[in-house]
């Protein structure tokens, strides 16, 4: 969209209209976006046809990459691997093939680091959790993902991007919890159990899954950032997200991994009155009070 000579857009409005959505990009486009231009090389891409052996047995149409794109390339000139989940295929659920692609991406990056090659990893997460159609193999492969993520992060930060619209739930929320840094948009959600499942298990008084503002209020990007569960809150802007990833890698290892903050979280839990429910604001307040 260009401005005519007699009517110029204010710079901030022009920038808004120039902005490219990251959320609207599919997994392959996201991986391409996060890597330096011209460096994208996909592993086990569609034409390798390594698909789910389990879905066709149940009459479910497979996807040629099983919903996970793994691409090697460079980020900020440094060797990198990007794993991007396709949230629109089976809800981004983790099956045998896509889970193994993710685990191996971390494993091969770790092996590079052990040889002195500083290969960094970014995980663009859109996932509802384990793929129930592959159940126990999904659970085993998720455990293998965690093992390799924990092994890799000792060498170099592992960055997770959660942009939406699927969000990050179930077993993959734990992967986000294991990562060195989490970047979220406002539209994204990060939560272990989805709101529908909590309503099903605990009743609508505990959680009303149809109350969208309430849901984003406790697990949306803005709240997670304010309550210390995400490191950066970004706009749905492909360039901004790409820059944010680079900035975090430049920053280096975090002072402390979130998963090692047991003293802080124990103190945080102790400070909360569990005889009642809390508002999102209270959570942020108590969290911030815990920062020494």
């Amino acid at each position, binding site marked *: 969209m260009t401005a005519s000579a007699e009517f110029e857009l204010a710079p901030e409005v022009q920038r808004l209209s120039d902005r490219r959505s990251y959320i609207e990009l599919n997994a392959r486009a996201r991986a391409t976006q996060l890597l330096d231009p011209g460096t994208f090389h996909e592993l086990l891409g569609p034409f390798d046809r390594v698909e789910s052996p389990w879905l066709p047995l149940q009459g479910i*149409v*497979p996807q040629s990459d099983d919903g996970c794109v793994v691409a090697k390339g460079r980020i900020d000139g440094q060797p990198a691997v990007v794993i991007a989940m396709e949230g629109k295929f089976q809800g981004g659920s983790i099956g045998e093939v896509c889970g193994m692609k993710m685990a191996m991406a971390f494993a091969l990056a770790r092996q590079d680091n052990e040889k002195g090659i500083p290969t960094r990893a970014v995980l663009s997460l859109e996932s509802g959790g384990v793929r129930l159609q592959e159940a126990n193999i999904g659970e085993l492969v998720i455990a293998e993902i965690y093992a390799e993520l924990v092994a890799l992060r000792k060498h170099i930060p592992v960055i997770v991007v959660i942009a939406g619209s699927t969000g990050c739930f179930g077993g993959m929320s734990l992967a986000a919890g294991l990562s060195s840094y989490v970047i979220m948009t406002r539209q994204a959600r990060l939560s272990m159990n989805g709101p529908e499942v909590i309503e099903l298990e605990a009743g609508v008084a505990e959680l009303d899954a149809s109350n969208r503002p309430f849901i984003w209020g406790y697990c949306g990007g803005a709240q997670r950032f304010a309550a210390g569960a995400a490191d950066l809150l970004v706009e749905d802007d492909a360039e901004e997200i790409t820059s944010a990833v680079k900035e975090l890698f430049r920053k280096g290892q975090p002072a402390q991994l979130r998963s090692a903050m047991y003293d802080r979280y124990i103190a945080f839990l102790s400070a909360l009155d569990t005889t009642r429910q809390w508002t999102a604001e209270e959570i942020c307040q108590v969290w911030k009070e815990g920062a020494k």
Partner: protein
Amino acid sequence: MEKLSFEYSASGKKPRRFHVGVVGSGDLEILLEPSNDSRSHVTVQTSVTGFEGTWKAVLDRFFERYEEAANIEIHDSGATPGTVALRLQQAVEGSRA
């Protein structure tokens, strides 16, 4: 799930391979590759059964204009004929880019 196959005659010219789409609700992915012989072969895996006639109509129309010898593999999750035609078009454009 239904598996369908179709064959069409071709000019013998081979396309470059290209992939497009996502197997999401109402969408499909297409893998387009050069054929091994001088004909075009289409396989469709679709979550919606009973629409062989509709698939044939869409593909017949596509191959009226598309002459290259291609293997086209489609994974479909309930796309409309319009979406199928669009993705086929994107696949062709991508393979010629």
